[in-house]
């Protein structure tokens, strides 16, 4: 058994030199990358003030916090929390709708098959990219400066940051649409607006509706956190309760968020399936 194996190995070595005698650079590449990754990790840990004593002290503190969170208890403020949750859902719905309404015409400008000239398309795309590069929380801070504290600032923050995302996604959907129908409309004498209305929109609307629903879902999560900087919703309550160390209320609020997000996931999943399913049938 062992003898046969030895023969096999020698024969294999002779037959496949590429596999057994790889050049040193190829053999060392992976370990070198791992070492480099760990070197940066260690440097990062030192630079960011990690220390075992601090870590374990914090961990035991965290253990205490977790213990104090049980059982979750809203106290007497359940109605306020329910209202805040409604506010959060409203922010997500309104912000996403507003973004979609404004992004649709702009995305036409950013799509290659609608606007062939680079001169207009390039700046539109870069503006959309810059809007997307700024986080929703930052937009919330800016809007708070403009319209004051409250959920309205949250709606506008979500609307602006989604406007960037939608503009890109919609224009990609439009670029992926079938050109034949547009050509058909043009052949029968339709104007450019007719081409968009009857040739493009029927194709892209189901895709867009699916994306909007998905964003309403993901914005429910974003809307929970923009309250932390003062833009209304359940995040405001959560940040306040964390700051005053009311851990039972905190855990109740986190549970409420989890349940709400799961419910929205479920509903929008069903709706999206209905829209996409109808499209697959048609």
């Amino acid at each position: 058994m062992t003898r046969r194996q030895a023969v096999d190995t020698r024969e294999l070595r002779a037959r496949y030199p590429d596999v057994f005698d790889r050049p040193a650079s190829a053999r060392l590449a992976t370990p070198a990358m791992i070492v480099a990754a760990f070197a940066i990790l260690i440097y990062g840990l030192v630079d960011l003030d990690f220390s075992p004593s601090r870590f374990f002290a914090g961990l035991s503190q965290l253990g205490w916090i977790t213990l104090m969170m049980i059982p979750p208890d809203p106290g007497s403020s359940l109605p306020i929390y329910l209202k805040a949750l409604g506010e959060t859902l409203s922010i997500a719905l309104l912000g996403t709708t507003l973004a979609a309404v404004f992004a649709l015409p702009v995305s036409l400008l950013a799509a290659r098959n609608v606007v062939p000239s680079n001169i207009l398309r390039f700046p539109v795309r870069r503006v959309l990219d810059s809007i997307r590069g700024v986080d929703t929380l930052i937009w919330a801070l800016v809007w708070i400066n403009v319209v004051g504290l409250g959920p309205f600032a949250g709606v506008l923050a979500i609307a602006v940051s989604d406007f960037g995302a939608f503009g890109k996604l919609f224009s990609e959907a439009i670029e992926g649409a079938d050109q034949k129908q547009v050509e058909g409309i043009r052949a029968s004498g339709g104007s450019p607006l007719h081409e968009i209305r009857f040739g493009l929109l029927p194709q892209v609307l189901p895709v867009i509706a699916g994306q909007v629903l998905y964003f309403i879902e993901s914005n429910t999560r974003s809307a929970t956190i923009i309250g932390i900087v003062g833009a209304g919703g359940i995040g405001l309550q959560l940040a306040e309760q964390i700051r005053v160390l009311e851990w039972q209320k905190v855990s109740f609020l986190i549970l409420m968020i989890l349940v709400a997000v799961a419910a929205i996931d479920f509903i929008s999943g069903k709706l999206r399936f209905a829209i996409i399913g109808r499209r697959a049938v048609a």
Partner: protein
Amino acid sequence: MTTAVSILPEQQLAVLNAAYRQAVGRRRLRLLLGIAVFAAALALAGIGAEVNLRTLFTYFGNFISYFDRILTLDNGQRVWTDVGEWLWGWRKWLKMLGETLLISYVGTLIGATLAFCLNFFAAENTSPAPWLRFVVRRLLEFARTVPGIVFALIFVIAFGLGPMAGVLAIAIHSTGALGKLFSEIVENADMKPVEGIRSTGASWLSCMRFAVVPQVTAGYASYALLRFEINVREASVMGFVGAGGIGQELVVAIRKFYYSDVSAILLTIIVTVFIIDISTGWLRGRLFGKEART
């Protein structure tokens, strides 16, 4: 050229027309109903979110002029006329940006390592016991659903102010997100090598090491890089709650109305995010390209 257009007799046509109208009418009705429900939900949401259109119209000018103000220096000139004055704090900001990148790097690496350790228990085809899979999956779901900044808020209290809380918050959130994606890759892996190795009498650990890991590492690396990209954005706002990084500077500048600083910091953040997006995109392209070639 003559074309034969068959014209149906009136009676036959009437039946078809009626059927068509009925079908279209039903669809229109459903669409109208959907729109009505949506509009009602919007109106309700408008009341819930205290939307006040008059406020918007009066203040929309402020929004535009806000950008005018953040692009103006203290001496009343446009920022790009005096770049040195505009980016006066670039040393400090670059240092904070470096810290932001380090936070996201360390957080992503810790999160990816934890996700790597957990995902084999969460995948349907490799999990040693159903109850273990259930527990790990719920754990990952929890880590994924609670927003990173909420973890940061709590960690700031437990671990103290500073980047450590940000790193741990990002690490936990990444563990949840990556754990799910990793376990999906494992579920799509070919099970034949696992059976081959198990038939030699190997333990579960060796099965994972020699049969599953070689199949999935490229996918893991690609998702981890994507996550790093997302985490850079997230780390840029961790400073809002005192968890380190450039967000700290930004929130101070916004709250204290240091207008030109706001635009300068935003510019550095946007540029950094662009650079990270482009470079990880290139790196992922190379990884995927290599995988496709072999």
